[in-house]
């Protein structure tokens, strides 16, 4: 806590945490309570502007937008978490082995990673979704695969640097198994850039999920997704322009929160970079 306090002047850290904690609270709350049932339709009450009863208005089926935004945090965090988990586990494994073992393992792994990075992210995501089919889990897997190469690159450079250090050589000398050296000894020492990368990936994943859902290829109804809500709102852009703001601002702020947090972590862990 003391170290956290000493960074209180860091605008990115304070704002980033504030944004993310607010969404986290909304998400936890949404498991137990939303002002209205998110799926109950009330056509008589459709497309009503923001009011004291419906803070963000109602959608084309008369459903409360604020409640759907709340539930949407679950989707956003779910996709983000699963994507980053896949990206970090496989990225660290692949990058770590490439860096630590070196030689042809490095060559083969990294060329494949380069090829994956050669695809524009959205193209690769669309191709994987075309194959796996849409849905919340498939979207996360597709986005997780896309997150792997950049994390693998970062892990690799850390492992290459550290494998020549004395603590690793000593561990080798007393016969510690390679796997243990890699993940018990080296990994904790190279984790800070990985944490920054994971935080960035979180933001990227949420943006990509929103984009896929906007295209109708990501999260499917009845699961509420902010990207999907934006797609729905577009049809009513002229008649009910306020509809688009709640989901749009939610996505922007959530992503902003993760980017700010990752900038803050980077500044704190490596003061020289600033």
């Amino acid at each position, binding site marked *: 806590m003391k170290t956290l306090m000493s960074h209180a002047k860091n*605008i990115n850290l304070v704002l980033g945490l504030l944004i993310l904690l607010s969404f986290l609270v909304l998400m936890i709350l949404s498991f137990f309570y939303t002002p209205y049932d998110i799926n109950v339709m009330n056509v008589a009450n459709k497309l009503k502007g923001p009011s004291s009863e419906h803070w963000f208005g109602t959608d084309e089926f008369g459903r409360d937008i604020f409640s759907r935004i709340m539930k949407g945090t679950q989707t956003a965090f779910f996709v983000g978490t699963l994507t980053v988990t896949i990206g970090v586990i496989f990225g660290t494994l692949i990058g770590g082995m490439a860096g630590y073992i070196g030689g042809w393992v490095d060559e083969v792994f990294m*060329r*494949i990673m*380069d*090829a*994956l990075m*050669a*695809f*524009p*992210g*959205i*193209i690769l995501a*669309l*191709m*994987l*979704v*075309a*194959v*796996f*089919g849409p849905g919340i889990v498939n979207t996360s897997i597709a986005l997780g695969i896309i997150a792997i190469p950049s994390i693998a690159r970062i892990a690799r450079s850390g492992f290459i640097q550290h494998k020549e250090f004395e603590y690793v050589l000593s561990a080798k000398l007393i016969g510690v198994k390679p796997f243990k050296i890699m993940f018990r000894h080296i990994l904790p020492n190279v984790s800070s850039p990985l944490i920054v990368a994971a935080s960035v990936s979180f*933001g990227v994943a949420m*943006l990509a999920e*929103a*984009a896929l859902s*906007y*295209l*109708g*290829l990501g999260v499917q109804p009845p699961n509420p997704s902010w*990207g999907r809500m*934006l797609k729905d*709102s*577009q049809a009513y*852009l*002229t008649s009910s*322009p306020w509809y*688009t703001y709640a*989901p*749009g601002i939610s*996505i*922007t*702020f959530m*992503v*902003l929160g993760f*980017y*700010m947090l990752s*900038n803050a972590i980077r500044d704190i862990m490596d003061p020289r970079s600033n």
Partner: protein
Amino acid sequence: MAYIIRRIILFVVTMVLVSLITFSVFQVMPGDPIRIMLGTEADETQVETLKKQLGLDQPLYVQYIDWVKGLVTGDLGESIRFSRPVTELLADRLPVTISLALITLLIVVIVAIPLGIFVAKRQNKLSDVVLSSATQLGMAIPSFWLGMLLILYLGMNFSFFTISGYVPWTQSVAGALGAILLPALTIAIPQIAVKFRYVRNAILEQLRLDYVRTIRSKGITEKFVMYKHVLRNSMIPILTIFGLITAEVVAGTIIVEQVFSLPGIGQLLITSISYRDFPLVQGIVMYITFIVVLINFLVDILYSVLDPRIRLN
């Protein structure tokens, strides 16, 4: 020369791997693709005919080689959904996407470079905070939402803009501009917000070097220092950034075309995915990725020509 040969080899290896990934992803697809394409009502003979037609009765490596041959010669077979050659469909849509990408790039270059120079000259705490906020916001805002906001604030207030659909250049230049400008701004604004900092940093880095101090001490005007010396030397790192921007703009067109209902390659890709028209999906993915890899390759080569130090590394 050795450097260029190495880059060419890397380019070829990357494209071979990209094609292998694109090819094999469709092999691990759960379920029988033929069945998925034809739907559940298809009978055995229909399945067999389509299999033959697509060459799926051949061994895998033959299928792969045939497919790559098709990619190179521009013969990707027929689209299942549209019953027309894939390359013909692509050629139809290409002008839309290319106009969009070029106009976006033009906007980014016209705005980001002067903006970068402008802020490099005025450095203080406040402007740094404002600028880094702009950058973070530019990275966080979803492009498709930005497009909707532009429709809301510009498209609906000025009759010059068409907010949905495309007008060919041959039909009306003003009409085409009106249809392309908003989508182009949608892609360009976040790019500018993120990339002008690179321009600024490249210039600041030059300003710190000894030669700038020397020419300044000779009494040469600041304008001359900036435009004759600093900007020229900063062009090399700036060029790399614009390679990156081109790749991102090409990718950006995919979603933004959807927001503005522009009948470009991106819209074709989305349509082909929803109709499970896999040959078309594979073809579009390969060609878009090829263009992006090619741009990066050309930038690398250009970079090494402009700055011989690169080749020695």
